[in-house]
């Protein structure tokens, strides 16, 4: 007689893991990140590496403090994803302490103090970003002009490192020669000065559709994002809802007054819209989980982004919009439960 182990069904499972999901998110970011590096220089890469190192360290310490299994939780790559999402959103020459502080706020406070992966109500990377944006607005708005990596105006890798870690700008450049307003910032301040959208868009900071350089990064994130949707790593409903919501409300205002309001394609292609739609709003832990709920959640983010951009105090609004919708997610879930098989329709 043979004796056997008792394990409950199902006995055959699919080959999937949290680590795999998170790694796919990282792969999908590569095209956009490459474009950012190409246009904004080595600082983007330095930020990424620094943020990853700090995130892993903070994650390890917090897991140890909370008595969790290090190997299991470190191999889920969730801390790395948080680090990358935040790093991509920082100015390329952000001083090292800014990056470190943001990552700490994300991993220690927003993630682990709220119970760790799966329990945090707010998107950790966006909490880190908002903490920095509200505490250090000057440092956070020092965006580089997208000169391109191999232009003479570009910083070398060593110059970049020195700038980030010493805080001193290389002597051969004036600060103004390197940094400038982001396209959304330019649009915002110049509309305030009474210029029309068409006039503003003649400025060299703008490219074909949106900001020069920026639009290529956005294209990279769109490509990676579509791959995430294709592999079902991200739910199509969230980016569709968010970009759809943003496009619709932008169209409405554009039709009302095209002189004052930028066209919808500019909004969809600008700032963090595409990146946010595919990589930030889709964070499953903090988003809505029901199918309809995800669509509504996405639309909510899209509309809030437009409101903050157009009428709020910040040039871009993805981070705030996502955090605001994070608050709403549980209520959305409650109201959008799917009709169970066999339940009455209506």
């Amino acid at each position, binding site marked *: *007689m043979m004796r056997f182990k*008792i394990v409950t*069904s199902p*006995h055959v499972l699919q080959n999937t893991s949290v680590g795999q999901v998170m790694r796919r998110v990282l792969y999908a970011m590569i095209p956009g990140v490459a474009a950012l590096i190409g246009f904004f220089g080595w600082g983007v890469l330095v930020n990424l590496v620094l943020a990853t190192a700090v995130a892993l360290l903070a994650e390890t310490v917090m897991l140890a403090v909370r008595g969790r299994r290090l190997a299991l939780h470190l191999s889920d790559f969730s801390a790395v994803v948080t680090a990358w999402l935040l790093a991509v959103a920082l100015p390329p020459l952000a001083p090292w302490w800014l990056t470190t502080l943001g990552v700490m706020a994300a991993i220690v406070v927003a993630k682990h103090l709220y119970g760790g992966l799966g329990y945090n109500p707010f998107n950790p990377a966006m909490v880190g970003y908002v903490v920095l944006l509200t505490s250090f607005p000057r440092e956070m708005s020092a965006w580089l002009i997208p000169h391109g990596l191999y232009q003479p105006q570009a910083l070398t890798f060593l110059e970049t490192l020195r700038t980030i870690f010493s805080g001193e700008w290389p002597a051969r450049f004036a600060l103004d020669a390197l940094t400038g307003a982001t396209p959304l910032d330019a649009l915002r301040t110049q509309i305030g000065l009474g210029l029309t959208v068409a006039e503003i868009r003649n400025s060299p900071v703008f490219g074909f559709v949106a900001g020069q350089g920026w639009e290529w990064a956005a294209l990279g994130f769109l490509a990676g994002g579509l791959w995430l949707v294709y592999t079902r790593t991200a739910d199509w409903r969230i980016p569709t809802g968010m970009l759809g919501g943003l496009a619709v409300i932008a169209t409405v205002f554009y039709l009302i007054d095209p002189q004052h309001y930028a066209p919808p394609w500019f909004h969809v292609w600008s700032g963090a819209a595409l990146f946010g739609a595919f990589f930030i709003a889709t964070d499953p832990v903090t988003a809505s989980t029901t*199918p309809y709920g995800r669509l509504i959640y996405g639309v909510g983010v899209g509309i809030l982004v437009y409101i903050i951009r157009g009428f709020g105090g910040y040039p871009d609004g993805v981070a705030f919009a996502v955090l605001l919708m994070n608050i709403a997610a549980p209520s959305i879930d409650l109201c959008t439960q*799917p009709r169970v098989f066999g339940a009455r329709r209506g």
Partner: protein
Amino acid sequence: MSRLFPFHGGLKTVRHKTESNRQPIQPGPLPRRLTVPLRQHIGAIAKALVQVGDSVLKGQMIGQADGYISAAVHAPTSGVVVAVDTRPVPHPSGLPDLCVVIDSDGENRWIERQPVVYRALHPSELRNILRNAGIVGLGGAAFPSAVKLNLSGQDQHLETLILNGAECEPWITCDDRLMRERAAGIIAGLHVMVHLLEPREVLIGIEDDKPEAIAAMSEMCAGTGYAVRSVPTRYPSGSVKQLVKLLTGKETPVEGLPIDVGVQCFNVATAYTIHRAIDHGEPVISRVVTVTGHVSRPGNLDALLGTPFAELIEQCGGYREKVERLIMGGPMMGFALHSDEVPLTKAANCILAASAEELTPTRPVAPCIRCGACVEVCPANLLPQQLYWHARAKEFDKAQDYHLFSCIECGCCSAVCPSHIPLVQYYRYAKNEIWAQEKEKQKAELARQRHQARLERLEREKQEREAKLRQKSPARTAKAEDSGAGGKLDIQTAVAQAKPQPLSLIPSHEGTGESEGEKTDQSLGKQDV
């Protein structure tokens, strides 16, 4: 091709059908000793008709259907009854059950077999014949078929009769082989069902990974008006409610049965056993079972019920190395067995010997990241991650708000969970807890009623006594009346004395011992449905 109505969710699973479906069905062994459980179906256990020492013939009834939802059990071969006692049986509970143990005389001597001319019979007579032939659903649920073949309680006409040949679980091929080789018998059995149910249409659903079976069945259906429908290979299309939806577009109501939407569904193997019973006078004493996985010669056996699994495995060349798990049923919904010393039953469609090669290695459980992969695949359209959340927190009422009992335990959610959470296990746990609580509530209610009845009885007796006394001596009664409500006082005393008793009537220790057995029965019964 007629229109199909896809159900939500489901999975493309591994198939592993070719291991066992390339060889014809082989006859199973004739074991020296057969252990025949008296409960191989949902419902009341059959009443034993034999005693130790009795000689039995092949096909002789040894257990009688006890009550409406029950089924008869027969001797699979001729021989001598050597024991009637509890033995290990293949059941998710792992609990032993009452069995008739027969030592075979090796002669396979049949009872007198009487084919039935069913068209001449009254439907209830015909159903009785099927009941006495031990016909139950052979798809795995083993629900007594005679009950489902009786529509007299229904006010409406049967719209659709569905024959389920989907066989969506990986590894299992017994229905596939049966349809290829014995399509004529299946259709003959189907005729009997049609005669009893008079449906408006008859549909036969088969997954499209079985082209030979579809061809064989289509050929047999020519000119009958029965329609074979090829359905996409997508687990769990063979689950009754999903197949009904797929073929008719009708959704079985929550907590309802297909008959509520005018549909009745049977497994193809069940139809075949009806054919054997009616056209050959043979009760259910054998079934086709797939023996597959890590065995030397996987295949399908037409084996006698009561044959030990070990002998079926032996017939298929024995285990290959390092078999870790023995599963009855498929890998998605089947349950693991402690040992192979359990007998073949009507519910056993597959024996899967699994080694590390066939199984997914156990992986550590990570926190739920609410990714919603489970929502995408749930054929019941539930929110598995919410169910899990509440089941884990033991918030059973909230789990019920999220329709816990609509869960068919198909395992799709567990299979796709990136956090490797054993979701189905949590749902089973929650269901069992809820059933146990309901059982407790019923017990308490019963105890309360008993107590109430006792008080009433005491009062009645008291009054009767007093009435008698009054009749005997009017003088004393008058005196009692003078002294005030003596009778009432007595009743109050009786009430006061009785009061602590309800507590002792619902003693937790006494109650749990009893309820544990019952709890398991009920929960398991429901699970099978």
